[in-house]
């Protein structure tokens, strides 16, 4: 069993390399991914190793990156598209929703689109406009797409390979604020077997409240659980990993035990994944619920300027406040309608 300590960014790089070595039909497309190795260096060294036709610097056009990827899929390739930043995905939205998501269904299974779309997403990096979005809900709402998000180097390494190996189109959301987080990666795992991509992971066990999240907030959730423990509250933290479909089995098992659910994400509250999970768990765990599911999320606003992002993004204190609510303990909105 070989393992190494590496950053989340390096882990994706290593996973891409392994996937490209395993299958010569895997081909990367994106802006600045070749010579430069990507603005976050995620694809560093790959063009030198695999050549310009397997790691393609494309002209500046997201719609074309996705549209040509569809064509490449027809031609039997396995494209891995990089969208440089979350906020730049929208020109490609039409190709994704109208074509990528529907082709398999439209052609009664004749055409497959085994495409992976890598999207650095989320805030917490003090960036300019359009560089900190969380657009995952647009895609979990679109049938025909798989949507995943990783929170740590091991999952990054494993899940990128599984996503590439999948015959369905997969949106792979990378939390850019965690690109530099280090962790151990066991290097044997590959795209075969599909262990990580389809399931949620219980990060730490607990008995009083279930805290569900994904991507960059998993780390914050773990910190919240630590503080809660010192206050006598036992939190079970779950990293969803798969956003579409959601592993309701794991979450249901947990909430049946705890009776209380808090969901957190950076994306806006309305129509976000929290709403989907709250509804799904209420259906499955109604008679176990001691309190309505609580959501701690970004507000229904465009992502704010850098100096204000700490107010918008759920942080340790806001998570703990949400946990207090779920436990019927005094909290910021005690006594109001939402208590």
């Amino acid at each position, binding site marked *: 069993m070989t393992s190494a300590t590496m950053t989340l960014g390096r882990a994706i790089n290593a996973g891409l390399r392994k996937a490209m070595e395993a299958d010569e039909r895997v081909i990367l497309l994106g802006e600045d991914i070749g010579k430069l190795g990507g603005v976050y260096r995620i694809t560093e060294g790959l063009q030198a190793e695999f050549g310009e036709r397997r790691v393609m610097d494309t002209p500046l056009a997201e719609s074309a990156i996705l549209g040509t990827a569809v064509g490449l899929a027809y031609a039997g390739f396995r494209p891995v598209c990089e969208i440089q930043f979350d906020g730049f995905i929208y020109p490609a939205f039409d190709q994704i929703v109208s074509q990528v998501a529907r082709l398999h269904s439209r052609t009664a299974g004749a055409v497959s689109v085994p495409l992976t779309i890598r999207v650095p997403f989320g805030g917490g990096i003090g960036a300019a406009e359009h*560089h900190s979005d969380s657009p995952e809900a647009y895609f979990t709402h679109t049938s025909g797409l798989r949507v995943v998000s990783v929170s740590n180097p091991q999952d990054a390494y494993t899940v990128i390979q599984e996503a590439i190996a999948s015959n369905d189109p997969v949106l792979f959301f990378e939390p850019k604020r965690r690109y530099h987080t280090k962790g151990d990666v066991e290097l044997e795992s590959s795209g075969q077997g599909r262990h990580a991509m389809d399931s949620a992971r219980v990060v730490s066990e607990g008995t009083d409240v279930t805290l569900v999240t994904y991507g960059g907030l998993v780390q914050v959730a773990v910190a919240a659980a630590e503080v809660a423990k010192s206050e006598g509250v036992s939190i079970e933290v779950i990293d969803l990993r798969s956003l579409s479909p959601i592993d309701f089995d794991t979450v249901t098992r947990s909430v049946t035990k705890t009776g209380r659910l808090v969901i957190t994400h950076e994306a806006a509250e309305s129509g976000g994944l929290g709403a989907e999970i709250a509804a799904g768990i209420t259906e499955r765990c109604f008679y176990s619920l001691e309190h309505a599911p609580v959501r701690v999320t970004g507000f229904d606003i465009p992502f704010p300027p850098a100096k204000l992002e700490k107010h918008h993004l759920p942080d340790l204190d806001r998570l703990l406040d949400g946990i207090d609510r779920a436990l019927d303990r005094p909290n910021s909105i005690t006594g109001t309608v939402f208590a």
Partner: protein
Amino acid sequence: MTQLVQLLTADGVRPGTSELELAVADVDDRQLLALYEDMVAVRRIDTEATALQRQGELGLWPPLLGQEASQIGSARALAADDFVFGSYRENAVAYCRGVAGVDLLRVWRGTSQSGWDPFEHRMATPQIIIGAQTLHATGYALGLQNDGLDAVAVTYFGDGATSQGDVSEAMVFAATFRAPVVFFCQNNHWAISEPVALQSKDQLVHRAAGFGMPGVQVDGNDVLAVMAVTRQALERARRGDGPTFIEAITYRMGPHTTADDPTKYRDESELAEWRERDPISRLAAYLRSTGTLTDEAQAAVEATADRVAAELRAGLVAIADPDPMSLFAHVYSEPHRGLEEQRDRYSRYLAMFDAAAVRS
């Protein structure tokens, strides 16, 4: 092969024989000196802003080093009621439109998503989505047509932007409706790490004909030529003859932004070549040859640049952090119940910490 239009050579020599000279016949020495000062000042803003980013006062800065003539020359040709739709790099144009130095920096300071009121300066605030502004400019031009006004919409974008669908669509609309819009493309040769050859196998100016509008390719580092062709394009639009595509050949001497490292993808030798064609030194050479740029005049220009830089720095560090409740302001024009509930909840949440701070 399209002729590159030029009035000043890279060495600062002005042959004076081109027909294009007519378009700038009225530009006297005093005005040329003013153009020189403009370019020196905006280069200084760039330098200072880059330093401020390195000092942690700005999150990011996109320099326009090397592109001063393209922006100053064209911007100084505009009339007061023309309207500009630029990208995120048109800080020199904004400077000419009267935007204060500190207001150029607000977006990069992270205190707001825009630095000025577009209607005060008749220039839209920085656009980060590549090419989106070209459609806005075309639409604005349609509005001008509807109102029978003789103002013009001008849109700035780079070579990379010409690959985006929005830009092609904007040119289609503009040509179809003979809209009074000028498409000003600064071909600075690089889109982050991608050379222009990746975006186009032919000169960008040749697209114009394909879309059904005239195109002109100008030496973007020649402030006089840039002014001349821009004036011509504006006049065409005002006459009702529709859009023009200008390709200004220039070079991005600096990085894409302060987060970029160009040594990873381009050659120092290319930079050295383009240093020979610097827009500011060529105008300086010309003005010295006519006796306009005296030592005194040079000192005065540098003093202006120093003042601009100092004001910039002072203004920047004085920008107050935004109030947390401003998160919820201006998302809508009209009241929105859902958002108001969120605001109330967050306000109660913050009050807990304010109360603790007061107590302690």
